[in-house]
């Protein structure tokens, strides 16, 4: 498995090709970063506007490598127990109840407290063994034998404590559980961290990662993306669509349309079996592209001009 991965990551071109095969069109820079991340064994911090393909990148990488994807969605108040591991308290209590008789037998034959406790010490770690451990995403990621792609989504929504906690895992790929010991990764996972830039990441986290910024794509790339995801669209319509969207992005909007929205719009137009862009059609379908009423008003003012230009 390792050798196969090494072959896939041999050169930047092979990565670019491989990603294209699983349906993710991207710039060369992304392939270079993936190449480095694999060989230097570092996580990747992906930033960029919403909807531009950050989470998709992780999914595409998992598909390309043929590895399972473990996803951890971050939010404020996320703490260790939900992310790392938790003891199966119920199971522990249940087993103690069921085995109470057995325990009585073990202790019964001894006299005095000290001897009983010593006898129990032999079975000390029984209730804190891996049987009773409920692994959560991060621990699962470390325990996969063949490796795994770990996606920590929207890490900027989690708080500072969580970030500090992530540092150990990201640099050494190991966790220490007090009762069991240190658990090292069987094979190092491929880690993606995505961020919407609502707040600055701490320096320590940034230092441990490679940084990738995915901007809005240029027209040529966007055409390729639409072609891959919505094959039923004619080339003429595709060009007009992309030209229109690029114009929309230049306006002063509250939220500029992202690649996801372009694809949605393309799908809508494909469903409506249209051949050519006209202002009425655009006006009707504008809400797939823009998500704020004020933005829709703004674009409607310029609609005629922009559609003319796109044709």
């Amino acid at each position: 498995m390792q050798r196969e991965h090494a072959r896939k990551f041999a050169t930047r071109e092979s990565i670019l090709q491989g990603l294209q095969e699983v349906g993710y069109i991207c710039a060369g820079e992304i392939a270079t970063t993936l190449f480095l991340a694999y060989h230097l064994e570092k996580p990747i911090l992906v930033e960029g506007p919403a909807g531009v393909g950050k989470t998709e990148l992780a999914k595409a990488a998992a598909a390309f490598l043929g590895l399972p994807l473990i996803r951890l969605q971050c939010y404020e108040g996320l703490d260790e127990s939900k992310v790392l591991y938790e003891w199966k308290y119920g199971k522990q209590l249940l087993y103690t109840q069921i085995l109470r008789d057995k325990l009585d037998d073990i202790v019964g034959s001894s006299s005095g407290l000290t001897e009983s406790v010593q006898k129990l010490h032999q079975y000390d770690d029984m209730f804190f063994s891996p049987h009773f451990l409920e692994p959560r995403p991060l621990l699962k990621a470390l325990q996969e034998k063949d490796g795994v792609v770990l996606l920590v989504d929207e890490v900027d929504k989690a708080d500072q404590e969580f970030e500090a906690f992530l540092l150990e895992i990201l640099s050494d790929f190991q966790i220490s559980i007090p009762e069991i010991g240190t658990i090292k990764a069987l094979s190092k996972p491929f880690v993606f961290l995505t961020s919407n830039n609502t707040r600055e990441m701490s320096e320590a986290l940034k230092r441990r990662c490679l940084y990738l910024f995915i901007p809005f794509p240029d027209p040529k790339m966007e055409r390729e993306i639409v072609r891959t995801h919505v094959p039923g669209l004619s080339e003429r319509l595709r060009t007009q669509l992309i030209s229109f969207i690029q114009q929309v992005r230049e306006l002063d909007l509250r939220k500029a349309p992202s690649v996801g929205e372009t694809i949605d719009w393309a799908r809508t137009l494909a469903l409506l079996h249209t051949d050519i862009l006209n202002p009425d059609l655009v006006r009707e379908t504008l809400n797939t592209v823009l998500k704020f009423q004020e933005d829709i008003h703004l674009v409607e003012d310029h609609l005629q001009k922009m559609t003319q230009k796109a044709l």
Partner: protein
Amino acid sequence: MRISVAECVDAMRAVDLVGYADRQRLGEALSSVLAKSSDEKEVFKITFERFFSSEGFPDPCQGIEDASIRLDLRASDSTLTGLLVSGTTADLAMSVREAARAVDVAGIRFFFQRGPYIQRILHHMGLAGLDHDIEMAHGKDRPASQRRAKILELARSRLFENVKSFVGRQYTLFAGSSTEGALEEYLRNARLSELEERDFHRMYSIIQKMLKHLNSLYARRRKTSKRGQLNFKRTLRANIAFDGLLFDRRWKAKKIDRPDIIVLCDVSRSVNAVVRFLLLFLYGLNQTLVKIRSFIFCSNLVEVTGILDSGLVGEALARMLSGAETGVLMGLTDYGEVFREFEEKWLDTVTGKTSVIILGDARNNYGDPQTEVLKTIYRRCKRLIWLNPESRSIWGTGDSEMNRYSPFCHLAKECNTLRHLERVVHALLQYSLN
């Protein structure tokens, strides 16, 4: 851009993997290892272009009419002559770079150092030998020698141009930042009232930097816990291991709210410059950090929160400070009247959590100071800060009522440089977090 040692090591490993044959690939690889935010990526791109710019070293010997008369390399020629005559442009470029490294051109700091560095590089390359050869060629009387001399001179001047532009590039690369740094230091400590229009642009960028720093520093909303109220849900969750027994108690936490700020600014000519920068500063702070209401006054008091909240602060400020459109009477400053008006119209909005900042020189033109009113405001608000652009030594001189007002201020500070403003803002934000 701060780059740690670990990042340097990573960069080396990255170059090792990627190789330096393909320039774009190298750029991408280094960018992902060294630049860790979108701003840094921009800076990196510019620096990368500058550092690895392909040296357009034009051939010193090109453009000579008689191409058939190629100069022969004579045994007596110096190394530099030999290089100019028969070497390739790549060899020449290599030689210049070696010489540059030998004279440590990376240490260049000031623009007047360019001349000396050029001389040193040329000297290291062997200019003396070239000059000697030219002289020798001039000395002989044959036409071939004369031609040779001319060609060599042409090559010499071209070489000089090459080295000059090379040193110029090195200067922008290495010294650019240090002169900028010195200028910035100067501007941070300069008196705002003495600055001129042409400095404003730089001041804005310095303010932006300070604001970014402040915003990221205080963006963390720290939670204090107010013990006394049990957070039941959290406690139960934490005590699952103990079968629901309230073993480990969790308490309700109260998040610190943003400070409430009311700013009163004197817009008379003397205080104009400081007002502009203070407001820029305050409005540049993240919305989530502070709630601001601003007022301007001269002979009367006018609220301008609406104007500043909407749109670009810089423009709004420029309009406001010229006195137009706001209803401010630009006559003699009358602090007494202003305080009275504030008490009448807006005192209700001052609560025990409000910080009131007054920016003015307290020069009342011998009017009625109305210190009683100030006392009322002082009692009601959380704290009253007076920022005076004049230096402390002249407080209380002439018609300045500073000494009458300062007992009723929690803090009275001299404020006329960017540094002072920064400190004030730090104090504002920090205090509220405690």
